[in-house]
C-alpha cells in the first residue's frame, strides 16, 4: 500500500574503503598510506566473485550489523521485508571487457562459466540478496554520476510504496584494471585514480523501526533529479540553507545554498567514486546528523551529485535529524573533521 508520507530512517551504515573507519570516518576520510592486505577480502564463498561484489558484501554486512538486523551472519527479520538497491557504473566492466576479448580471440576455451552472472549488470545486487537472504525488490542503478543518490531515492520510494520495510542501499566501484585504464584520471597519483570501495545504508520505515525498538534519529527527507544542481537543491526544499553541505565531486559550490554551517567535500578526501559517491555522501551525512549540532545549526545535510558538463543531470538528497527522538548511542564524529564553510558571499 502506497503511503507517500512514510518516514524513512537511517537504521545503519557501513563503509568498505581500505583505511577508512566506519561511519564518521568518512567525514575526514584520512587514509593510511598502505591499505590493509588482502583487499578486498576473499573467502571460500566469494573466491569466484567479482571485485565489486566482494567489496559490496563487506559494506552491506557492516550496515546490516549496525542496524541490528544480523545475528551470527543471518537476518533477524523476514527476508521478504528487506529489499536491495545497488549503485555501480563500473562494477562489471572488467569482467565484461575481458570476457569479450577472450570470447572473440579464443572462444569458449578462454572463458569461465562462473563469470556468466557478472556479464549482467545486476550481479552485485543479486549477490548481496543471496548472501543475506533479501527477498524483496532488488534494484541496480547504473545511472552515471548521480547513481548513488538515485539509489537512495529509489530505496525511499520502495519503502513508501510498501514494496519493502527495509532497504539495503550499496554504492560500490572497484578499481579493477579495465576501469583503471579506460575511465580513471591518469594524471592523478596511482592509488588515487578511482575509488576501490563501497558504502552502504540500511533504510527502514519508522513503523518497522519502532516495531523492533530502534528509534533512530536520522531521516531521508527528499530526493530529486533535475537539470542542474541548483534545480535539484530547490526541488528537495533546501534552496536556502543546510547544516552540512556535501557538494558534487567537481565543483564545491555548484548548487550550494546561501547559508551552510559545515562542508564535507569527498572530492578532496577520496578518489573519484562514480556510482558510489551518493551513498558515501549519505553515510557521512548520517554520521554528522547523529551528533547534536551546536545551537543555530540547521539539523539537515544536503548531498548533491552530478551536474558537471559531461553529466546528463544532477541529483540531490536531503537528510534531517529528528529532534523529537532520542539519539542512538553511536559514537559521534569528531566535529573538527568537518571543514568549516567559507564565508558567505
Amino acid at each position, binding site marked *: 500500500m502506497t503511503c507517500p508520507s512514510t518516514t524513512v530512517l537511517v537504521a545503519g551504515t557501513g563503509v568498505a574503503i581500505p583505511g577508512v573507519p566506519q561511519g564518521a570516518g568518512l567525514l575526514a576520510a584520512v587514509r593510511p598510506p598502505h591499505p590493509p592486505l588482502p583487499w578486498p577480502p576473499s573467502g571460500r564463498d566469494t573466491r569466484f566473485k567479482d571485485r565489486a561484489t566482494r567489496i559490496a558484501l563487506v559494506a552491506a554486512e557492516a550496515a546490516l550489523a549496525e542496524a541490528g538486523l544480523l545475528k551470527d551472519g543471518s537476518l533477524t527479520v523476514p527476508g521478504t521485508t528487506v529489499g536491495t538497491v545497488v549503485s555501480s557504473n563500473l562494477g562489471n566492466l572488467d569482467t565484461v571487457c575481458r570476457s569479450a576479448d577472450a570470447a572473440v580471440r579464443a572462444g569458449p576455451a578462454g572463458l569461465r562459466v562462473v563469470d*556468466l*552472472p557478472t556479464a549482467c549488470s545486476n550481479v552485485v545486487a*543479486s549477490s548481496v540478496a543471496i548472501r543475506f537472504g533479501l527477498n524483496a525488490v532488488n534494484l541496480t542503478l547504473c545511472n552515471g554520476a548521480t547513481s548513488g543518490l538515485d539509489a537512495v531515492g529509489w530505496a525511499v520510494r520502495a519503502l513508501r510504496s510498501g514494496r519493502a520495510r527495509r532497504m539495503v542501499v550499496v554504492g560500490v566501484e572497484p578499481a579493477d584494471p579495465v576501469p583503471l585504464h579506460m575511465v580513471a584520471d591518469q594524471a592523478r597519483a596511482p592509488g588515487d585514480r578511482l575509488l576501490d570501495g563501497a558504502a552502504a545504508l540500511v533504510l527502514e520505515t519508522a513503523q518497522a523501526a519502532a516495531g523492533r525498538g530502534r528509534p533512530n534519529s536520522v531521516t531521508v527527507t527528499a530526493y530529486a533529479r533535475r537539470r542542474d544542481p541548483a534545480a535539484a537543491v530547490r526541488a528537495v526544499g533546501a534552496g536556502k540553507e543546510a547544516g552540512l553541505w556535501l557538494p558534487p565531486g567537481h565543483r564545491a559550490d555548484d548548487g550550494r545554498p546561501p547559508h551552510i554551517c559545515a562542508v564535507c567535500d569527498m572530492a578532496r578526501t577520496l578518489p573519484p567514486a562514480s556510482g558510489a559517491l551518493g551513498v558515501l555522501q549519505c553515510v557521512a551525512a548520517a554520521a554528522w546528523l547523529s551528533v547534536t549540532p551546536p545551537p543555530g545549526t540547521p539539523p539537515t545535510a544536503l548531498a548533491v551529485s552530478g551536474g558537471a558538463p559531461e553529466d546528463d543531470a544532477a541529483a540531490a538528497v536531503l537528510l534531517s535529524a529528528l529532534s523529537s527522538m532520542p539519539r542512538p548511542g553511536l559514537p559521534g564524529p569528531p566535529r573538527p573533521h568537518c571543514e568549516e564553510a567559507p564565508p558567505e558571499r
Partner: protein
Amino acid sequence: MNGPTQTWRIAGTGAVTSLGTGTAVTFDALCAGRGGPVPLRAFDTSRMRTRHAFEIPGPPREPADRLCQAVAEALGQAGLPADLTDVPVLVGSGLRGLRAAERRWAERGRLDVADLSFGRALRDRFGAVDTHTFGGACSASLYALALAADLLAAGDADTVVAAGVDTITASMYGLLDRAQPQSPREVRPFDRARSGQLLGEGAAAVVLRRGGPARAVLRSVALHCDARHVTAPDVDGLVGTQTRAHEQAGIKASDVDLVHAQGTGSLVNDRAEALALARVFGTGGESPLIISVEAMTGHTSGCSGLLATVIATECLRTGRVPPAVGLSDPIDEATGLRFATGGPVGGHAPVTAQIDAFGFGGVNAVAILGKAL
C-alpha cells in the same frame, strides 16, 4: 490512498525488434509466425560454437538510438509531444552501454562513463532529466514498469515513460556459448528438442498515465528476489511472484486469460517456468493461453519484459495472439498447459493478461494487464 485494484493507463507503446521497427510491424510479424535467428554480424564468432542471434536489421546502431525510437513511437501513440522535460523516464537494461565499452577496450581506448547509461541520449532527444537506467537482469524492464506504476500511485507524477532496451554483448554471448551444453541455431521454448537460448536486440517503451485514453490498463506488477542462485530460477519464487501479482491486482489465477511466458528456450529456465505455470494454473487443460515469442525475437535480455508488455497490450486490444513458434513436442513439465497456436483466440477474447519476466539472480517480476474498457 490507492486501493489494491487501482489501475494505470497504457496510453502508448513502442517497439523495435529484429522483426522491424514499430509496435504494429513487430506484432503483425509475430502473429504471422515470422522471424528467426541469422548469423551474428556485430562481432567475430568464428572461435565460438554458437553463431546465430536476432539482430535488428540494417546498419548497426547504439542501443540508445533504438531506445529513443521506441520512446518516440510510444509518445506519438499517446498523443504526447516529444518533450519529456517534466516526465520521469525509467529504463531497464541488462547490458546497457556495455557493448560500446567492449569495443573501446578491444582498441584499448578511453570510455566516457555517461555512455554506459541512457540519460544523455534521452536528454538530447526529449529534454528528459528525471531519467533512470536500471541495470537489471532479464526482468529489468518489467521492474521499470513496476516502479513507474509506483510513481503514479505515490502521486509523484501523472505520466511516466517505462522502457527497456538491450543489445548483444560479446561477453554475454560468449559466456552463454561457454555455459550452454549445445549451440542452438533456433529457439524452441518449452519444446523437448530445445537446445538453449539465443540473444536478440530490442527496445520497447510504454507511456503509463493516470487518466486519459488507454490501449490497455496495468493492474499490478509484483517484484520478488529468490535470493537463492546467481543464474538458476527457483520454482517456489516463480510461483510466489505470480500469486502476489494476482493478489495485488485483486484477481484469481482463473481470471487470467493469457500468459506471456518468459520462455527463453533454455534447458533449466523453461523447465522451472513450466512447473511454476502448472502449479499456478493447473494442468487439466484449464490453463490460460500461453504465448512465447522468443523463437521469433530471440531473448532480448532486460528488454524482454517490456517487449512482452507491448505484445500483450496488442493481444488485449486486437484479440489476436502470436503462435508459439518452435513448440511441437512440449516438455513433460508443460504437459496440460495450453499454448497458443496462432490466429484469433477461440471463445471469448482475452480480458486479463499476465506477463512473466525472470532474471539472473532470481530477480522475478510478474505484471497483470487488463483490456481497456
